């Protein structure tokens, strides 16, 4: 196992702001200084003290890593972490500002589905032209043409202009061309986010096969931690243009998810206009685990609420509603009524294990005061995410539904039908 791809100290700097007369002035100034006066470039990147310069953005900062042949490397990171920039540099679309990338063999990148597709051309014509764009030869395309068409499942429409295709068909055809590439290194951006679950599974299987059987190296960027942990041998976590973690998939993905969780739980609003009662803190954790650990589907979940009360002489009842991200209420519950006293009030609630599916949930709090009509409502006070970590299964997609109880499934009998159907 040797390194097929070596990234050495790669950085990428973008100039912020608009291209205008200022740019021309700078360009002329630079040209004059470098070519006529033979001085150093006054606007060279090195001359910037560091990234405090307001009109530059370090999309990548001193990135170094290696990928071995036959590996599937998953790259995770939140938006703006430099994932796409890295892929663009590796696939030779943009140049790094400094640093070197060394590699062996043919590289193909899928940063977008349907690159080079033309609306007015037929499926057949588009297969060829987009294949050419991806560096395939005419012969190669002709050889696997039937396979491509079969994989995409659009046989009937192959001579129809793609503008009449449904978006699903378009995606399937576009991906099928790419799936039949035979590079040594394949670079895949989040193109799989589109398409139906069945097709996604098919594509992921094809990718795993390619790596497993043909020793192909794959770099795969995804937001979906589940897919990365199922598919990839190694993972790389980029954060604000720098590598935070690099190595064994499960560890990297766990770190990445934990970092997301920190941000989310810290969202409790400390101040409220109401001076009688305040929500001091609220925490959602897996029972018996610390704040920064990931909540899994099989963990019982504990919700801790801390209220501060400033006046007396009324009764309090706390209601809690658990919602999905799109606002559907999963359930709501109420606390027993208590008499308010100046001081702190603590609540804890437990959601049993194997109840909620792997999703993001938000919690809203309602505080009822008995002798006042006012209801304090804290909408979307906290967001938390439940992760689904299953063993390697053949199914890569995520389970549907809001709840996911543990259902006993038993196979009672398996009978082979011998005589023909009487109908």
């Amino acid at each position, binding site marked *: 196992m040797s390194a097929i791809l070596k990234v050495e100290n790669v950085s990428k700097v973008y100039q912020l702001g608009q291209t205008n007369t200022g740019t021309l002035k700078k360009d002329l100034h630079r040209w004059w200084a470098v070519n006529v006066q033979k001085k150093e470039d006054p606007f060279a990147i090195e001359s910037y003290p560091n990234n405090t310069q307001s009109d530059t953005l370090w999309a990548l900062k001193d990135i170094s890593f290696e990928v071995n042949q036959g590996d599937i490397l998953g790259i995770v990171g939140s938006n703006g972490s430099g994932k796409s920039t890295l892929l663009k*540099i590796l696939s030779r679309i943009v*140049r790094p500002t*400094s640093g070197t*990338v060394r590699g062996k063999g043919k590289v193909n990148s899928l940063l977008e589905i349907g690159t080079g597709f033309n609306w007015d*051309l037929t499926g057949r014509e588009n297969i060829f032209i987009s294949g050419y764009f991806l*560096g*395939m030869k005419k012969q190669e395309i002709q050889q696997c043409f039937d396979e491509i068409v079969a994989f995409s499942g659009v046989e009937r429409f192959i001579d129809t202009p793609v503008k009449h295709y449904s978006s699903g068909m378009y995606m399937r055809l576009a991906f099928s061309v790419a799936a039949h590439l035979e590079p040594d290194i394949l670079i895949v951006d989040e193109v799989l986010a589109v398409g139906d679950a069945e097709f996604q599974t098919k594509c992921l299987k094809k990718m795993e096969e390619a790596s497993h059987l043909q020793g192909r190296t794959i770099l795969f960027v995804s937001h979906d931690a589940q897919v990365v942990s199922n598919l990839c041998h190694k993972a790389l976590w980029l954060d604000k243009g720098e590598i935070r973690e690099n190595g064994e998939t499960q560890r990297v993905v766990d770190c990445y998810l934990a970092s997301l969780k920190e941000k989310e739980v810290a969202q409790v609003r400390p101040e409220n206009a109401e001076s009688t009662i305040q929500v001091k803190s609220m925490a959602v954790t897996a029972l018996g685990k610390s704040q920064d650990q990931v909540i899994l589907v099989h963990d019982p979940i504990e919700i801790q609420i801390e209220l501060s009360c400033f006046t007396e002489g009324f009764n309090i009842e706390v209601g809690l509603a658990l919602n999905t991200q799109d606002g559907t209420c999963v359930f709501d519950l109420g606390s027993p009524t208590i008499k308010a006293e100046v001081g702190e009030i603590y609540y804890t609630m437990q959601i049993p294990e194997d109840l909620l599916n792997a999703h993001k949930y938000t919690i809203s709090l309602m505080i009822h005061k008995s002798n006042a009509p006012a209801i304090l409502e804290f909408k979307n006070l906290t967001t938390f995410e439940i992760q689904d970590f299953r063993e390697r299964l053949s199914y890569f997609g995520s389970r549907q539904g809001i709840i996911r109880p543990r259902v006993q499934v038993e196979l009672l009998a398996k009978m082979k039908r011998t005589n023909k159907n009487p109908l």
Partner: protein
Amino acid sequence: MDNKDKQKMAEWSITARTQWWGRDWKEIWNYQNLLFGLVQREFLLYYKQTLLGPIWMLLQPILTLLIYLAVFGKLVGISTGTIPPILFYLSGIILWNFFSEGFSGTSKIFQDNIQLFSKVYFPRIILPLSVLFVQGLRFLIQFTFLIILIGGYVLFNDLSINFNAGTFSIPVIILFTGVMGLAFGICCSLLTAKYRDLGNIIPTGIRLLMFLTPVIYPVSGTPENLRWLVFWNPLTPLFEAFKFALLGEGTFTMVQLSYSMICAFVFLLIGFASFNKHGDNLIDVV
């Protein structure tokens, strides 16, 4: 097999430095399928959903011809020498279209294809080349039509054409006209990508240039004291030579023709080198 494997696993590297001459010519050769695929696509798209289809390729210069005949021939009354006006205008129009379409097509290459450039790697020079090839093919079709028309004139209108040594130089003249369009185009494409202003100037510039080029008038018809202005334009000797070789009338000297060819060559070198050097970095700016 072993050898093939080694070849397949060729090593490469990506650095911040771009080169003026480091172009991997073999790579361009490997992408020839893309080049011809693009040419084919342009032709396919040209007549998709049209009623007349490929006939438009001939109809366009003919319509222009009719306008020129009416405006410059009848209204303004520019003399075309001994050449029948139809042949004079048509030969000028098709050669001019070849140049100007190649020029304006390549000058917009970055803006028109940014979607492609930012998503997939291929040798960028393939796209300007495909524009040249498309225009070249279109020109050849129109040129064939012109030859047939000249044949008709010779047969039925007693037009006498002297075949001279120049006749054999026609392919060279056509080649250099195309190269000139490509060269101007790539030079401008780099600038228009960064400074959009130029994109607005180029169409106007091309129209102005047409009046400085003997498309609708023969050089022999220009006033002596202004002739230097026309000959300063490197396209002039090419157009005059084209008409001389085809129709037997044109004013140019070998020195002037050499000047044009050197111009085309130098601009092509500058264009290619700058495209190599700056093309990759422009993706960040467009």
